[in-house]
């Protein structure tokens, strides 16, 4: 035991461990035994405890659910800001640095491969073009106007119109990303990545298209993907392939050749979601949400206590995150709101019979 025997009132008040016990009940067994073993300190301890409680006053906390929605509001607001302002609103020094870097890499790239004029492609849609770059280490989820999910790795970027054309959905991307495309046969989805054009109707896959790499790669997780080469070279060869799940295609930028091969697992860019099939059997909903948070890099706010009895048995496949959330919330009878990377779940709890 410590030198508590010589403690004075002030020493008790000043002891951080003692305060944590008074305020939060931490290490209760320890402090109860201290109290028992130093009977002469009982008055000091009681006095210190009472003083500390007076100092705090009423313990008033905002309920978890309200806190979650307040936080969602904040994150919602700032992520909109970030998207709209993009990078040009930063101080000019930073912009200069970005330009220099782009010229550094881009200049090299342009010399070797003249990239198709992508902005022209998007401009056809006639709507404002949104460009999102993930500047963080953590992955960034982008939800496209049609509800499709795109998970960007660090330095990956994607450009898309604020609203898609009626007959097709077109996006331009560079870097490493995982796509879950909303199913819609009426409105095929096109991805321009380097010289590779990918066409799908609804499926999931990863793309690796780094500006500095000599090749562009894509691996299919679910569904069927149609790949073609945009820049028509002189060399004869394979310019068009159709990929099924667990197939990988490599486009060689120098020769413009496409090569297809089978893989055991559709893992290309090292994201957990590439090999995750979201199969749940009587899984507590908090674990389901944790899996989604990790896969998509989102925040899900929910009341752990209220939902402590909610379990999920389901197989969630390649639907975008919004659809996955819809299914889960239907099962547990909850509502949710989603704004960019923040999701707030409102639940009244579940019956034990579930």
């Amino acid at each position, binding site marked *: 035991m410590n030198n508590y025997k010589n403690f004075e*009132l*002030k020493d008790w*008040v000043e002891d*951080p461990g003692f*305060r*944590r016990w008074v*305020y*939060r*009940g*931490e*290490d*209760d*067994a320890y402090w109860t035994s201290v109290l028992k073993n130093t009977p002469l300190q009982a008055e000091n301890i009681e*006095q210190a405890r*009472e*003083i*500390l409680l*007076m*100092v*705090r*006053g*009423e*313990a*008033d*906390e*905002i309920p978890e659910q309200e*806190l979650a929605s*307040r*936080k969602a*509001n*904040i*994150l919602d*607001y*700032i*992520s909109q*800001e*970030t998207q709209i302002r993009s990078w040009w609103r*930063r*101080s000019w020094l930073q912009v200069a640095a970005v330009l220099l870097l782009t010229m550094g890499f881009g200049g090299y790239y342009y010399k070797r491969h003249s990239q198709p004029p992508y902005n022209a492609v998007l401009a056809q849609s006639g709507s404002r073009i949104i460009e999102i770059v993930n*500047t*963080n*280490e*953590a992955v960034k989820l982008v939800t496209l106007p049609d509800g499709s999910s795109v998970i960007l790795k660090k330095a990956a970027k994607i450009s898309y119109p604020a609203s898609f054309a009626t007959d097709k959905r077109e996006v331009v991307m560079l870097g490493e990303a995982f796509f879950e495309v909303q199913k819609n046969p009426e409105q095929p989805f096109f991805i321009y990545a380097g010289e590779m054009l990918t066409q799908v109707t609804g499926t999931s896959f990863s793309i690796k298209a780094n500006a500095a790499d000599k090749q562009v790669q894509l691996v299919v997780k679910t569904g069927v993907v149609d790949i073609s080469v945009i820049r028509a070279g002189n060399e004869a060869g394979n310019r068009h392939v159709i990929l099924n799940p667990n197939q990988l295609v490599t486009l060689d930028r120098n020769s413009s050749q496409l090569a297809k091969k089978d893989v055991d697992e559709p893992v290309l860019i090292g994201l957990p979601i590439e090999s995750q099939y979201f199969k749940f059997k009587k899984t507590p909903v908090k674990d389901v949400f944790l899996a989604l948070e990790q896969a998509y*890099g989102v*925040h899900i706010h929910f009341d752990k206590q209220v939902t402590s009895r909610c379990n999920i048995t389901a197989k969630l496949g390649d639907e975008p995150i919004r659809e996955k959330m819809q299914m889960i919330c239907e099962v547990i009878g909850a509502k949710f709101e989603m704004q960019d*990377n*923040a999701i707030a779940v409102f639940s009244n709890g579940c019956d034990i019979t579930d």
Partner: protein
Amino acid sequence: MEVLSRTCVKQADNFNAFYSPEYWLQICEGNITAFGELVDHNFNPLYHYGTRFTPDKGLIKDCIQDLFLEIWEKRAKLTHIVSIKAYLFQSLRNNLITRIKKQSRFSDFSENEEFASQDDSPELAWITDETDALTSSRLETGIEMLPKRQREALYLKYYQDLSNEEIAGIMGLQKQAVANYIHYGILKLREYWKYKTILLAMIIDYIN
């Protein structure tokens, strides 16, 4: 009980790692995930602090929300900040007092003069307050005998675990003034406690 205390300890650990300078830098560089955690960890402590100044809970919550947006807005210029918690508390205090003063133009709010940052001597406050306390018949909570600013200093020190230096920054006081506030505050509260016990003993004596 076992499980409960373990989760508490874990939270405390996270809390410490959370205030590391690296973490703050990530926020300044625009890491939204890190920023979200800043909101998570600080909303309730800030809210509780806000209840020191006004019973208007909605106003406090709005002020905190605005504060976080303001921080995000100017994050790139905040890299020099060392004590994040103290910075948050100080900013909330300033914003809240400004808002309360604005409102009080339309309503009676004489108390807020106490928040004004004039370095009055705590000893003097102690003496004047002593007479107040004697004339006051209500003595249920001893803390109410102390001037508001002294209460605030004690609260920041013991409930929010801030250092004298941080408290001085938050309240716009000299470090020594904070030390005095706290020293005399504890003395007074002890006095009150003794007074209460004697009173109780006398009552029990009287009843018997």
